[in-house]
């Protein structure tokens, strides 16, 4: 995976920020994606390219269970969110829906990667390569079941 990173360093970026409540009635993925991250960056959907990443503070995705949040991000092109920790429902939704990867990083990594850096993510070796500043960082390994669900392409394709 290779793409540009969009950095929002604050902690607790919640689902009302990722996809505000009034749009919950919308279920068209393309329409939802226009409103992604509207609560923090009104221009977000215009500046994201396919395969890009979000880098954010701890507890990303806290708040509601709305699957609209990962759907909107993934439909914009986001392939992975990198954060020191995630809220549980958001994490599950990303994985079980097969939308995008929630990648857990060290807190110190957050400071060392800058907005608009180009990143290459090597899931085989659990590594992030920042091509802009030529640094390497590690990502946490996925628990075995999560890994299997990701490899299957989502919960529906996973065989118990």
């Amino acid at each position, binding site marked *: 995976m290779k793409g540009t990173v969009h950095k929002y360093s604050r902690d607790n970026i919640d689902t009302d920020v990722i996809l505000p409540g009034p749009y919950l009635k919308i279920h068209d993925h393309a329409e939802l994606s226009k409103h992604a991250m509207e609560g923090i960056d009104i221009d977000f959907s215009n500046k994201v390219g396919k395969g890009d990443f979000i880098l954010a503070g701890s*507890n990303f995705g806290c708040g509601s269970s709305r699957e609209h949040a990962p759907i909107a991000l993934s439909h914009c092109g986001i392939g992975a969110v990198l954060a020191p920790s995630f809220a549980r429902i958001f994490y599950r939704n990303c994985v079980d829906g097969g939308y995008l990867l929630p990648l857990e990083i060290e807190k110190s990594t957050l400071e060392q990667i800058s907005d608009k850096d180009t990143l290459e993510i090597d899931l085989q070796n659990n590594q992030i390569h920042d091509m802009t500043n030529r640094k390497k960082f590690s990502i946490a390994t996925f628990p075995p079941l999560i890994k299997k669900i990701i490899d299957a392409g989502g919960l529906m394709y996973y065989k118990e």
Partner: protein
Amino acid sequence: MNITEKIIARASNRNSVSPGDVVFANVDKLMIHDVSGPGVIKVFEEWSKKGIQLDKVWNADKIWIAEDHFVPSADRISAENISSLTKWAEKFGIKKHFKFGLGQYGICHTLSHEEALVLPGEFYVGGDSHTNTTGALGALAVGLGHTDIAYAMMHGRIWLKVPETILFKIIGKKPPHIMAKDIILKIISDIGTDGANYKTMEFAGNVVSQMSMEERLTLTNMTTEAGAKNGIIEPDAVTDEYIQQRTADSYKPILGDDPHYLEEYTYEIEKLEPLVAKPYSPQNGAAARELQTVEINKAYIGSCTGAKLEDLRQAAQILKGKKVKVRTEVLPAAQSIYIKAMKEGLIDIFMEAGAVVGPPTCGACCGAHMGILAKDDICISTTNRNFPGRMGHVESQTYLASPLVVAASAIKGKITDPRDVSN
């Protein structure tokens, strides 16, 4: 094992489980509403394009549907969503569909207890993050997204990681001006909005034992705000009485047995002050008296957190014979609660005080409709979240508080401790 672990062990047909185990567990009850329902229907549409067809749901009698977020239909899209739910429920034979304007209906988490749709010891999943609420009945109640709910609807099972549990013992003599809302705001201020991430929050202690079921539900409702997977209270005589008043269905309560906890906190609440959580996080707790210079222009008494019968009674006790100084909205959380409030004369009190009483709906709690906030609005609310944009414009401000504090503030037009209004 503690109560949560014992329920997971039962639901996954194991003798025992430990925190960290990942299991597939059998679901006893499942809920969708007018936001998650259409989301789930969409997931099934996407799957069917890929060759995975839903011919029948795992058990139509164990699934129920609420219409709450966008009722009365806020616009054409929400009207379509609501009509799609009806068609879908009919197609799969789901009979427990609580429709706006057709007898009993209300906020999903309120119906779960008010109609005793979930019983002690059950594993209940809902397509809404505040599904945690129902844990006050001694059930394992967990909120999930659309894909997980769709999977559970099809297979009657879902995966779970057995959570670590934090025990909160609430003890001492509860002062009359303190409500469960103050206690949970205090806990969240201490542990933070990620303080219980992926974990269980279990409540015990003499204050909890003496609490009514509706007050207990406020504690578990807001465990979501600390990131918890679930909130739970062991069932007792209060639980039994509450359920027996609502259903003849029998159940087997599950209790902890030599329980283990990751951490234990004890809260002695005799000196607790009425609290308010400042914008923009439920963890920003401060004493109401410290904020008495903050002027508000709206008061909201609504939601699954703060519009149960007891919440309305407490607010009415303050508003009786008084006039509100700012726009005040009261939305009972379910039709049955509205009726009870009416019979007790509470609706008269609200209306004579100058408030508007609206239909049961999520309404402005999630910024959906019915009184959402403008840019400069400052609202005090009995709801559970005050993130930027939660109740309307991203710059609008919401202060979270108990129904007593909200009612007192509505009278004064600024944040007010209920002890500072004369009776």
